[in-house]
């Protein structure tokens, strides 16, 4: 599978989209495949909360696993995708678009450096599968 260009990725299977000083985060296609059917999403932070790089901001629960979602950067939460409460399965069907999870205002845009681009993330996945 080829990950969409224009997004950044983490080794813990989140994707991040940058729009100016706003960051949007979600889980990747690889993640949703590993988890299989998502049954519940729990948000651990809400609008207005300050979070640091690496803090767990949400938990995604499937029948066989529960995974934490982290923001790979620090900032203040501006929006949470409430629709995932009623329709958590969107994370499986459309992880990169309507499956967005949270938005935040960045503290320091320079923190982007550790992130992978689409090609690097795909290569990382191939390595894992091997």
């Amino acid at each position, binding site marked *: 599978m080829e990950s969409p260009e224009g997004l950044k990725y983490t080794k813990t299977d989140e994707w991040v989209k940058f729009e100016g000083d706003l960051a949007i985060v979600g889980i990747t296609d690889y993640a949703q495949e590993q988890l299989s059917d998502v049954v*519940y999403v*729990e948000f*651990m932070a809400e609008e207005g909360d300050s979070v640091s790089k690496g803090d767990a901001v949400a938990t995604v*629960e*499937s*029948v*066989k*696993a*529960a995974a*934490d979602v982290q923001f790979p950067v620090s900032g203040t939460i501006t929006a949470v995708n409430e629709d995932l409460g009623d329709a958590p399965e969107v994370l499986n069907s459309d992880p990169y678009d309507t499956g967005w999870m949270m938005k935040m205002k960045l503290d320091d845009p320079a923190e982007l450096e550790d992130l992978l681009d689409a090609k690097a993330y795909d290569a990382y996945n191939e390595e894992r599968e091997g």
Partner: protein
Amino acid sequence: MFTPHTPHEIDAMLKAIGVNSIEELFIQVPAKHRFPELNLPEPLTEMEIASDLKEISSANASTEDFISFLGAGAYNHYIPAAVDMILRRGEFYTAYTPYQPEISQGTLQAIFEFQSLMTELTGMDVSNASHYDGATAAAEASNLAYHYFRGKRKKIVVSRAVNPQYRETIRTYLQGFDDVLVIGDEETINDKIESQDLIPFIDRDTAIVLVQYPDFFGRVIDYTKLVEVAHAAGALVAFIFNPTALGLLKTPRAFDADIAVGDGQPLGIPLSFGGPYLGIFTVKDKFVRKLAGRLVGETIDHDGKRAFVLTLTAREQHIRRERSTSNICTNQGLMALAATIYLSLLGKEGFRQVANLCYQKAHYAAKKISALKGFDLAYSNTHFFHEFVVKTPQPVRQINLRLQDHWVLGGYDLSQAYPELENHMLIAVTEKLSKHDIDDFVSALEEVTGV
């Protein structure tokens, strides 16, 4: 003993494996310590062990021969014959945890029914499949509250009128959290031990407030104000309940409790010197994903047929591992089944009868005992259910020793756990005791205190 292998079979198996002896299979065990001589008695046959254990058991006084007024967390109720007959079915008691629903519908449906009965009893929304006992259920309630607030609230406020063993267990379970404080029960303000005494301890750092209902002294208290104060401070409230009492009394939910936990031993489970018992854990809907322990849910199978499965398993230790909030694995499956059968057999009518009988007989006993010279009801201004406290003219320990000559097991000596309650006896009366038994007890008390 129970190994079926014949010498011929052993030979064939060793040959198939490719070794000459069984000992060879243990080559990796360090030679120095391999095959130690164990200093154990010579093995007994079934007939011999049956006889030996019969003898050992007869060295005990039991409620078979003695009339007992002991409660304090374990109660002598009548267990209908059908309960044990069903429990002894090998399909139930030799079955494993129902991880494979296709071949475990018996266990799964029984647990689902158990969960239903527990929520009905307590008025709460969800019950888990059981916990070890009431004490650990109370500890897990505290654990739940701590994680619910993500460790930001560090106080666990607990009433001194909660069973002392439960309070100690809560402390034991929480000692791994360096910053948590269990408070509210260490002050001995007076021997009245009011729940109102808890209010000063409740603040915005309180995760949970735990009270017992009826409390350890048997008292039925209106916790409305206390619940209000706790909720206003944003804290959770847990009621530790007695299930028999709920055959008669208002539910914890009616008081707006968030969590209701207790021990289900009174529901068809023998006294058995303290275990195995049955932890009951029920909560409001909003805590369902924070609930530790197994949960059975309803679903359908491939053919659209109704089926039951373990669900929300992602919370549990085998999946979340170090991020799970509790490590519980094996629970009290067979005991939950016992409680389910018991409540099914008694039903609405029978269970209410038992609760009423306990209430009536306890009140009769209280009246007659407090009429004795030197004896007084300790909390005469408070309602009680089937346990009450009397002040005694002599130390309870002494009284109880002498009562044994009358084939009576007297009530619990409260001074063992409450230094401020010297000469206070906690007496429990259940439906098993006749008026005659109670009258005998009263006469015996009169005689042994020689008053």
